[in-house]
Structures are given as C-alpha cells and as structure tokens.
C-alpha cells in the first residue's frame, strides 16, 4: 500500500523528520547502527527488520514509516542518551506508533502477529 519510508540517523534528525510529517500517522522502527557490511550490532534488530518490512504494506494509506538508526552500541548503552530520555525508549529494536502509547519492544518486534496488530488496529 502507499506508505512513505524515510531513513534517518540520530535523535535530532528523527525529531525534525517526525515534526515535518505532523498530521499523518507516523510509525517508527529504531535499530542499532549498521556496519560496513550492513549488519547491525543489535542481533534482535537484525531479526526484526525483515519481519517489520514484510508487514509495511499493511500500514494505513497516508502513513509515514521512519527507519531510524539510533547510534553505536556505546551510545545506546548510555542511560542518558536522548532516545531514552526524551522518547522513553527502553530497548532496541523498538517499533512504535508515534504520539501514542502503542509500541513493541525487543522480542515483540519479531512477532509478525504483533507487528500486524500495531500497524492495522486502533
């Protein structure tokens, strides 16, 4: 279906991008950075990404999907990083519906049923 995908890296870029799409349903997947071969340092993110991508076609029509790389492992481990502080993220991967309390964290992101529910139900 017609949903737009945007890829961003780091907190400031994420916030700018989310604000620019204000008014449209925004879904975001937060993953650890990828190395030169395109593999993330976060094993759960590696498993979750294909599952999430497979469900993207179920997103409502004018949605925006923001794929956000949060940073390297050291940045993520810092308990005061901006994602933890401002977005209240507790783990990666996190898949959320921006502006709502609806989210899936870590192993929940690997379960197609749950991703489907997040994308399609109110």
């Amino acid at each position: 279906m017609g949903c737009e995908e945007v890829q961003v890296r780091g907190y400031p870029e994420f916030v700018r991008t989310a604000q620019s799409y204000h008014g449209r349903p925004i879904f975001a997947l937060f993953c650890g950075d990828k190395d030169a071969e395109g593999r993330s340092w976060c094993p759960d993110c590696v498993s979750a990404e294909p599952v999430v991508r497979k469900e993207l076609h179920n997103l409502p029509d004018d949605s925006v999907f923001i794929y956000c790389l949060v940073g390297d492992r050291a940045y993520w481990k810092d308990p005061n990083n901006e994602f933890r502080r401002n977005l209240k993220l507790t783990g990666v991967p996190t898949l959320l519906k921006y502006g709502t309390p609806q989210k899936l964290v870590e192993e929940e992101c690997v379960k197609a049923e749950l991703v489907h529910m997040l994308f399609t139900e109110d």
Partner: protein
Amino acid sequence: SVQAHKEEDNPQTTMEVNGLTPVPDSYDYDLIVIGGGSGGLAAAKEAAKYEKKVMVLDFVTPTPQGSSWGLGGTCVNVGCIPKKLMHQAALLGQALQDSRKFGWQFTEEVKHNWMTMTESVQNYIGSLNWGYRVALRDKKVTYENAYGEFVGPHTIKATNKKGVEKLYTAERFIIATGERPRYLGIPGDKEYCISSDDLFSLPYCPGKTLVVGASYVALECAGFLAGLGLDVTVMVRSILLRGFDQDMANRIGEYMKEHGVNFIREFVPVKVEQVEEGTPGKLKVTAKSTTGDQIIEGEYNTVLLAIGRDPCTRKIGLDKVGVNINERTGKIPVNDEEQTNVPYIYAIGDILQGKLELTPVAIQAGRLLVQRLYAGATAKCDYVNVPTTVFTPLEYGACGYSEETAVEKFGEENIEVYHSHFWPLEWAVPSRDNNKCYAKIICNIQDNERVIGFHVLGPNAGEVTQGFAAAIKCGLTKEQLDSTVGIHPVCAEV
C-alpha cells in the same frame, strides 16, 4: 473458516423461528470470556496457558456524557489506577506544603493544572490498554471489541461498534461484565451530572464540585479533588461508608471535614438544572432533607454522582440460557466454585452476589477457576480475610471484621479491642494533626485472642495492611503480635 460456516447457516434465525434451541456439537472456542476487566483478562490469560482456545469480548457502552475507554475494565480505566494516581497528585500537593517546614524554599505559589495531570494519567492508562492487547495477542487469545450477549445454549452474539453481529459458540463461558455507576433517576441527572466513568478523563477542570454519595468512591474522589485545591461538597443521604467499620468511617469523615471538604448530611438531590453552559458550566442542585421537608439549593460547576454501582447483567441474554440473577440487585449467585445455576456458565468479579468487589479478588477467582477447569486443581477462592484500603486523604486499611460485625457474630463479651492513636514522625515537623492517625485490632477472646479484625487509619495504610493480612491468614494472635518487635520509626510499629 468455522465462523463463516456458522454465519452461512444462520442458526440464529432457526432458533428464533421455531423456539427450539439446538445445541452445537462442536464449539468455536473452549472458553469465551465476556468482559475484559480484571477478572476476565486474568481468566483468559490463564486458560491460554493450558493451550485452550479462548476468546475475550470487551465492550464499553459510552456514558451519557460520551466517555469511553479501552481494554482492561473498570480498575485500569476508570477505577483503582487513575484514582490512585490522582490521590497521589493530591498527596504531593500536601507534601509541597509540608516541604517548607523541612527547609525547601520556593517563593512561587504552587498551583495545580488539571489538564497536565489528566493527560499523564490517560497516557499511562493507554499504555496499559495496549499492553493487555499485546499480551492477549501474544498468547493467542482472540479479542474482539464487541458487546456479547447469549442467544441460545452455548451460543453468543457479538456486536461491534459498527453494529456488525457475529455468532460464536463455546464449551464454557465466564461472565465477567462488571458494573457501571448508578444514576439518581431525577431530572437532569444524565444530562448534566458526571460519574467516576467520566471524571478521570474529564477534558476540563471540574471546578466547584458537588459529590453525591458516601461510598468509598465518593469519599476518595471528594478527597483528592479537595486536595488539588477545588471547592468540594459531599452530599450524604445517611451514613458514610456503609458496610465498613463505622467508627473508622466517622474518623475519615471528620478528618475530611477538618481539611476543607464540606458535608451536607441527610439530604438527597431531587433536581439538577443547568444555569450556564460551559466546560465546566454552572449547575443548580435542589435537594430535599431525608428527615423533614426542608429544601436547599446550591450552585456548582460539576456534580459527580457516586451513589452505587449496578451489575451489567440485565442485557446480556441471561434469560435465553436460564442463568438466575437476583432480580432486585442484578447480581449473580454462584456456588463456591463460581458456577452459576447453568453448569457450563461461570461468573467472577463485581457481579457476584455476596462477594467483595475488588480487583485482586476477581483476578484470584478467575485464575483459580481456570486452574480447576483445565489443570485439575482443586483450590477455591478464599473470600475470607481479604484486605482492602480506602484511599481517602487519610488512608484507611482494613482486614477482617469491623467492630460492629465482630460484636454481632461473637458477642461483645467475647471480643477484645486494642486501639491506639499514633502520630507519624513525618507529621511532627510540619505540625500536622497529632490525634488523627489511629489503629485498632479486634481479637476473639475464645480463640486464643486471635486477631479477627485489623484497622489502620494513616499514611500508606495500604502498604501497612498488606503484611498484616498475610499474618491474619496464618492465624495471628494478640500474643504473637505483641512479641513481634516493631520497626522504628514507622507508623506500622504501633
């Protein structure tokens, strides 16, 4: 695909036409739970553990003011959770006042913003609603946001908010539909008054509020509204906290009165009229005395009705399957295994006749019931010595008999009451009341002075009471209590 098969057959038409009610010989589900509240969800999740095919139906009929909410039932959405959070908001207001005496300096006047608090509370509730949906989906429990009602043996009709109807069959059912606030039945009640169902998501500050009722819901709400700085009046028909120890109830009332809550005793509203529209608007309440002909009038921004709750059992087709209910109260009588008079239909939670209306009780009953049904367990829910706490500004925790009930059951000469006022250390510095906190235990002289009633009025009463409830379950006696060394300095050491 099984559902599609049933819809094509349209068994409902057959049933209604001949008046015969065919019993399906294979079912869509092992268990259908009607009601996704504390009891219903606990039962459904437990059944899923035993690989049973389970469905949960949950539907909230909007209030007269239009309020509605998500999965989780009363406790999560319009009960315990938001109540405790708002109670905490009020306590923090008090703490801010006390803090100056402990050396904190701030010159700005401290004000409360209703919208900020409500938004935070609703956000948290939203995460709980979502969490339940994830949990159910993860455990493969089918959840439908639809109104369930029986249409025939083993068969239920589910109607969603768009009016689409589906039929489902199950081997067993658990009714866990809970209750909703009662209205007065006077002119203007549904048009202008709100209930607890509306209060916790009210999109504007309630302002000057009249709380009608003397239940714990009424007193807790009046308590935190006053604690947030609002002008609050409580209109009481007769006594406070019916069913609770009356000595404790009166102490709670006195404390609230001394701390800014107005009480109008022995009056009932007879009419509510709108003086001004707005959010909030202005309402005029006319009330009549219960002891004479006196009529009084008052103006308030908000009128909150908290006069009782009625079970949601009248419109779920119980007559179609022959489940008995108490016609006067709507409650469902069950045996000690939560079974109704229809063997495959069970009931748990607030709708039960003669049982405590508490979340942990419903959860416990639901879990144990399912374990008996599917895991060969035999343990039954123990409804005796269930601890409870009323979160009025001065909190009240209790477990076991009230003094009146103990006297009635054992005879005044056979019980001994030990009591004491206490002064929390933390209250000494800000010079808060030194004669309000109170604790008492009721002992059965004929049974080794066993503690049969525990009552405490003071900060953190819930936390204090929990441990004593476990002790009482173990048969705590006065001697054992005396020989337990206290923790110092805490309230509980009294």
